[in-house]
């Protein structure tokens, strides 16, 4: 296979002597925390708009209250999700520097949408949350704000996932020219379906957990807690089964080199294990489907099972990295080694040459002209930006005129490009002009 790969950064990876599995585990853990917040962000912001609409059409205060309460997990998860997104990127960009930067450059400038689009969505989601009471008589407008915020959040995963799918498949660096080349592929499609389904299933569990807490708090929150538990179960129970069908497909949509090698590793069992955990959780909830309330320990069990399923998916994804990067990382290391050996040999030879080079004694006037930047535009023999000093000397203007030109700048004498005024002492001006006039 013909690879197009950048060299590695010729600096040692700062492992501090820690083993490779430490960084793999660190990467997986910080990614799971990040993605858990992002799932909650996508689901909770959707839920808030959805129950706001239900509240209007069903004229239900409970639905409206649930919608309002879901803006809190939205705020927390959008902040924590952004913050915890930094950590996995930090780990990835230090371990797989060349692949990560190549991918991010190939999908530029669109990748900046994850900054500016995100700011836009953040601000709208705050506008939605903090205008809740002042816009309660303008529900249509209010819901429209929330809807635009949610839809903007929905545009972020396709952009980010395009980058991540490209960096995971370095063989595509030669053929992918822009973001659409990678976004409009079956892999991105399957991974997006998997992402959104997991987000909705995950949010279902979050709603159950929050609902149990609200019921426990009692009072007017009991009703909304029950609604959250009921709806949370439904969210999970439609999203999870579809996800179980889609999930294993994702890992066969990578390029043939990766998918074929993946089958021969133990990682291939992980998507199925994740599906199995989702299935267990499905039956766990089915058994309690008609209960209005749930115990806190049952809700906690559901959260734990869901997190386990997400961690299994994340580890399965890590398997793709292991399989995909083995060959290119090695090729890259060899190419970098060769390149840097040549570079350092040439650099040493150059330094040696400089050391042995005879010292040139310059006319002090030449050094002065150089230090004042004259030689950027003038040379002795040929006209460059400004006239050659030979030509100036031949014109034989008086020293005063030349001094005035130096002091105030000059244009028109030798063409339209002006010479800017120079900052020189009288002594320096004199030295320079004497020298210039000698260059006949």
């Amino acid at each position, binding site marked *: 296979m013909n690879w197009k790969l950048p060299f590695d950064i010729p600096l040692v990876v700062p492992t501090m002597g820690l083993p490779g599995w430490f960084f793999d585990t660190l990467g997986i853990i910080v990614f799971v925390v990040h993605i858990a917040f992002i799932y909650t962000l996508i689901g909770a912001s959707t839920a808030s708009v959805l129950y706001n609409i239900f509240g209007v059409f069903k004229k239900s205060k409970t639905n409206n209250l649930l919608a309002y309460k879901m803006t809190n997990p939205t*705020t927390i998860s959008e902040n924590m999700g952004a913050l915890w997104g930094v950590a996995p990127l930090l780990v990835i960009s230090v371990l797989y520097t060349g692949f990560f930067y190549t991918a991010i*450059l190939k999908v530029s400038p669109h990748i900046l949408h*994850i900054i500016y689009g995100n700011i836009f969505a953040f601000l709208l989601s705050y506008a939605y949350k903090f205008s809740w009471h002042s816009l309660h008589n303008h529900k249509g407008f209010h819901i429209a704000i929330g809807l635009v915020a949610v839809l903007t959040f929905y545009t972020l995963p396709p952009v980010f996932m395009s980058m991540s799918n490209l960096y995971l498949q370095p063989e595509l660096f030669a053929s992918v020219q822009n973001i659409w080349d990678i976004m409009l592929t079956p892999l991105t499609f399957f991974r997006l379906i998997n992402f959104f389904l997991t987000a909705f299933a995950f949010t279902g569990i979050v709603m159950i957990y929050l609902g149990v807490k609200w019921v426990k708090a009692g009072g007017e929150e009991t009703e909304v807690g029950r609604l959250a538990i009921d709806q949370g179960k439904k969210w999970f129970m439609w999203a999870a089964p579809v996800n179980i069908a889609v999930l294993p497909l994702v890992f066969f949509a990578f390029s043939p080199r990766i998918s074929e090698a993946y089958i021969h590793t133990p990682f291939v069992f992980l998507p199925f294990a994740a599906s199995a955990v989702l299935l267990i959780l499905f039956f766990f909830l089915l058994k309690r489907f008609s209960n209005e309330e749930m115990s806190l320990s049952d809700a906690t069990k559901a959260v734990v099972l869901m997190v386990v399923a997400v961690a299994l998916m994340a580890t399965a994804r890590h398997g793709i990295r292991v399989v995909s990067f083995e060959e290119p990382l090695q090729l890259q290391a060899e190419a970098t080694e060769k390149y840097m050996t040549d570079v350092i040999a040439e650099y040493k*030879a150059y330094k040696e040459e400089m050391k042995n080079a005879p010292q040139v004694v310059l006319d002090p006037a030449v050094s002065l002209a150089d230090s004042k930047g004259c030689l*950027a535009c003038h040379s002795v023999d040929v*006209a460059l930006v400004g006239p050659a000093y030979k030509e100036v000397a031949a014109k034989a203007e008086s020293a005063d005129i030349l001094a005035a030109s130096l002091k105030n700048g000059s244009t028109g004498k030798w063409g339209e*490009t002006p010479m800017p005024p120079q900052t020189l002492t009288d002594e320096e001006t004199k030295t320079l002009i004497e020298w210039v006039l000698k260059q006949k």
Partner: protein
Amino acid sequence: MFDFPIFEMPTIGLRMLMAINAIIHVFVSHGGAVGGSVVLALAAWWTNKKGDLAGYETVYRLLMVFFIISTSVGALTGIGMWIHANIISPNAIGGLIRVFFWKWFIEWIVFNFEVILLLFWFMTWKPKATTAQGRASSVRFGIYYAVSSWITMLIITAILGFMLTPNFDGQPWIDPEVYPGTVNYNNALFNPTWFPGLMMRTFSSIAFAGALAILWTWLITSFSKDEEIRATKERMIKFFATIMMVTVPVAAAFGYYYLLQIPEAARAMIPTAMMTRAFADKMDLMYMIISGIGGAVVVTTIIAYFSPKRFPYIAATLMVAAFMLFWGFEERTREFIRKPYLIYNYMYANGIRVTDVPYLNKVGILKHAVFVDEDKKVLKEDKSNLIEVGHTIAQIECRACHTENGINGLKFLTKGWSEEAIRNRINNLPGAGTPYMPPFTGTEAEKDALAAYIASLNKRGEIK
């Protein structure tokens, strides 16, 4: 040697793309987060101590504004600094991340404290505001938040100091004479500019946040339907103006102290850095601008302090605008005086490593440009693709600072120059005229191609 795919930003250029993000980030992180946390924690403590519940409510509304701006615009442009650096100079950021990974990881952990404390302070304010005990606990969290954001800034300025003195200990591909591996981090951290720099940042951030707080207090109280909130305008503006009366002179004193500690050579470049090359020697103009900005801040502060009730909105805006100019200049200057290097003595501003230059001068800059098509990097026998090849070289070596035809455009800079003149200029880029430019790297043939390309920008097209 640029072995990554090339990304160009037309018209505004990569520098401006980065600058937009960086300046927004500096405004929000200094004014909103660092200064804002201190000012609002003080205001919450003061109003609660005085039993001024309406004032306490005004502080909450201010906190809401600061919370919204710093968690959205501030946090994301912070991540944006990194993403922009990724696409502008992958070699530089890739090198820095190898050297500074653990320090950045620590910084990230500290950020967690800051964000969590802010979320907690803001989101529990309302439920806690009803009892005296709750308010006292809320004020405590505000103070924790202020301390944590100041510590974040402390760590970041320390890291900025480190970045000017990178440690390449134990690296195989480094010139041991340039980097002997005996970096003393204490010297790097406690260099003469560190303390005055940090103090200037701290106090001017608090002063800037005071100005922002005045601006928003004006808006919030003037348009409030609540009579009691409207009545807080005078005393809140007076309170924030008092903070400014203290911090503005302190910040100015440390700013002067800081300027004295900068090496002479770097100080001489400040006027160029602040404005453009045309102002290279106009020290007096620079002082005029600084006094103008400073004067605007001082005058508006005094008005706000002595006449908070009649303090006009336009003065509040002027106050904030003056601070924005100040931060803009400060950041531009700080970035500029590092040139022509990105990493001192290791990597030039265009991402080319110093060690690589002799080798690339021999084999050519384009030899290892993996992602460039063959017909754009290999000169044909008949030289028919000379200009295309030159264009590729410009994309690799000039892209970081110059555009073709927009900001700092090559076309504009070489208007009226002959190809010969351009070629000569390329020969002495880091000369005395432009000491901040890195040298041309590549073979003589490549220099011809680059000169031909730049000259072609000012030639008229033809109908074929």
